[in-house]
Each structure stands twice: as C-alpha cells, then as structure tokens.
C-alpha cells in the first residue's frame, strides 16, 4: 500500500480545504496536489485489480471488505478532485462577469492552461448568447450590466486611479483622473465601479 502513514483521500480533501480557505479571488492551480491525487487513484486501482484476480481465482472472501474499502477510497478521491475542479470553474466563470472578456494578468497566472481555455470558451459562448438575446432588434441586452435594481439614473463617483478618457453614450468625453469626482449615468459606469476604478459615493 502506498503512503502507509497517510490516510486514503487525505490529499484530495486537502485540495478542497485549501481552496475553501483561500481568500484570494482564485488561488494558484495546485498542479502538484492534483497529480498526487491522480497517482493515488491509479495506485489504488492497480492494487485492487491485482487482488480482484486473486479473489476471483481463490474465492477468498476475506478479501471482499478490503476490495470494497479501496473502491470507496477511489471514489472519494475522484469525487474530491472533481469537486475541486468544479469549484474552480465556478470562480473562473465569476471572473467573466466581474472583469469582462479579458482576465487580469495577475489572476491569469493562477490558472492552468485548460482553465484559460475554459474561460475563453465560456466568454465566447456568453458573448454570443448575449448578442442573440437581443433578438432581431440588433439590441443586445448586456447581462453583465444591470446587476442590481436601478435606484437612480445618475450617481456621484470618485475616480480611484488615472483611467484616462471615457466616452459616454451621447458622445460626451470625460477625463477620469485620480481623485476627480463626477456625476455620471449609473448604467454606463457600472462596470467601472465594479472594477474599483470608480468609487460610488453614497
């Protein structure tokens, strides 16, 4: 048996715990942990296959509980690992809603390559869906906007960084400079507020 001092499934459970505990938007993909879990799965499986043939040949029923136990350990490993990946997917999806179609550089470093692909595919599907949801009117409903019930058309905002020029729907161009304050249409600046570039002054 591999890892005599360790319990089956411990590493897989650790993966989940670490992800749950992390306060980051999304912690770095635990390449090493995932590999170890996959190895454990493979090892357990091979042991069981070997013993199953002994069992089948000898009919030694004392092996039965052990086979069952290993099988359960295998399933638990799979389950934890997939739960880990699924939870990461959920957070990756949330990135699309929060930051738009481009992942901020520092967050991108935390993703493994298949995750970046997942994000890009998701982003593309969502964009295509949003375009088609505007139906034949050529008027896409931007679902990533209007996230909260509207309270007022205009809001008072303070600019938190030097953002530069920002063009409003009516063509007016405003300069967003650090610490400048503006009175702007809520719907049009919602995403800047969400990204922390503008701060909504209550």
């Amino acid at each position, binding site marked *: 048996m591999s890892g005599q001092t360790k319990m089956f499934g411990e590493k897989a459970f650790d993966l989940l715990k670490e992800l749950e505990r992390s306060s980051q938007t999304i912690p770095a993909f635990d390449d090493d942990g995932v590999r170890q879990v996959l190895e454990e799965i493979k090892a357990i499986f091979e042991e*069981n*296959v070997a013993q*199953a043939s002994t*069992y*089948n040949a000898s*009919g030694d*029923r004392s092996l*039965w509980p052990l*086979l*069952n136990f290993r*099988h359960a350990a295998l399933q638990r490993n799979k389950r934890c690992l997939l739960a880990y990946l699924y939870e990461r997917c959920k957070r990756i999806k949330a990135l699309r809603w929060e930051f738009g179609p481009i992942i901020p550089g520092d967050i991108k470093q935390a993703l493994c390559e298949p995750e970046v692909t997942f994000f890009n595919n998701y982003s593309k599907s969502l964009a295509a869906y949003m375009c088609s949801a505007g139906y034949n009117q050529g008027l896409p409903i931007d679902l990533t906007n209007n996230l*909260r*019930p*509207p309270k*007022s058309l205009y809001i008072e905002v303070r600019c938190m960084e030097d953002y530069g020029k920002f063009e409003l729907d009516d063509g007016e161009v405003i300069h967003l400079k650090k610490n400048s304050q503006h009175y702007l249409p809520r719907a049009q600046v919602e995403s800047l507020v969400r990204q922390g570039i503008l701060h909504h002054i209550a």
Partner: protein
Amino acid sequence: MDPSIIEFIGEKCMISIIPNFSNEPLHLIYGSVGPFRAGFPVFVPLWMATHLRKQQKCRIVPPEWMDMDILEEIKEEEKRSKFFTKMPCEHYMVVAQLVMSTAPDDVPRCEELRTVIKDIFDIRESKLRTSIDAFIKGEGTYAKLDNLTLLEIHSVRPILPYSLDHIARYQRTATASQRDTSMLSASMAASSSGPNSNSLFSQ
C-alpha cells in the same frame, strides 16, 4: 432574493404627490400617470415619487395609513390577535422607509411613526418566529401564510425553506439507507453464490 429586489418590487406601489409643475400625462409602459397640475395631488409609482421629491419637484402625500391613530390601533390589534392581521399596504415597510427617508418633512410626526411602525414589524417578526418554531417541531411541510408581507416572508426566506428542505432530505436519506442496507445484504448473499457477480471492477 436580495433585499434590494424586495425594495424594487415595493417601489411599484402607487403614492400620491403634489407636484409644483404642470405637465401632460406620461404614458409609461406600466400605465399612464398624470396629468400633472401644480398644487393638485396625483398618483404616481413610488420610484417616481422619490425621484421627483429629490429633485424638489413635488411634495409627497403620506398614505392614509401613515397616521399615528391608525397605526396605534393596528399595533394593538396585532398584539391581541393570535394570527397575523392584514396590513394596510402590502409593502408597508418599504413604503414607510422610502417615504420617511426621502421626505421626512412631508410626514407629520415622522419620528413617532417610525417607532410605531418598527414596533408593529417587531411584534409580527416575533410572532413569525414562534410560529415557525412550532411548525418545524410539528414536522409540518405545508403552511398557510396569509397576511404576511413580502418583506416579512423574505426575513425568514433563507432559514425556513432551507431547514424544511434539510429535514425532508434527512427523512429521504433515512428511508433510502434502510432500503440500501437490505439491498446490500441481498447482494452480499448473491455474491456468495458466484464470485463474478460483484460489479465493482467489471469491465
């Protein structure tokens, strides 16, 4: 459901305002409002009333029930009654809160009203807690909730349905595991008759 959504829904309530301007009727999707004649009351949705008030284009006329005598009576009735009494407005908390925060000057005895409305809400909330407690202990899965307003329902929204769902889940699991145990012993019995009948590593 986020509290801001409860407020959003409550903002559809119609309320009377006295505009200081005149205008033709407005044909909103939700229905027509107006005409507006300076100095004459007109009913508009609450979201519009609070906006116009902030722009100092109108005075809000507090709804009839926002009156000390009426509310004191409701409060006494609520105390006396075992059941929830019918509130004068389906969104009384949202309306009161929005009107009193946007236009305190338009509401006579605003502070007193605030207190009595809060009292009524508290009495109802505590009644709600007691009945939920009895309901769950009685292992109920269905209940009638007449006269509760949306905000009050919302105040028990996560906890009540979730706990009922959990209880139901435990009950189902209990039934299922009883079944599983009997199935397991059956399959163990079957496997003893032939070593190839287990399915754990087939294929």
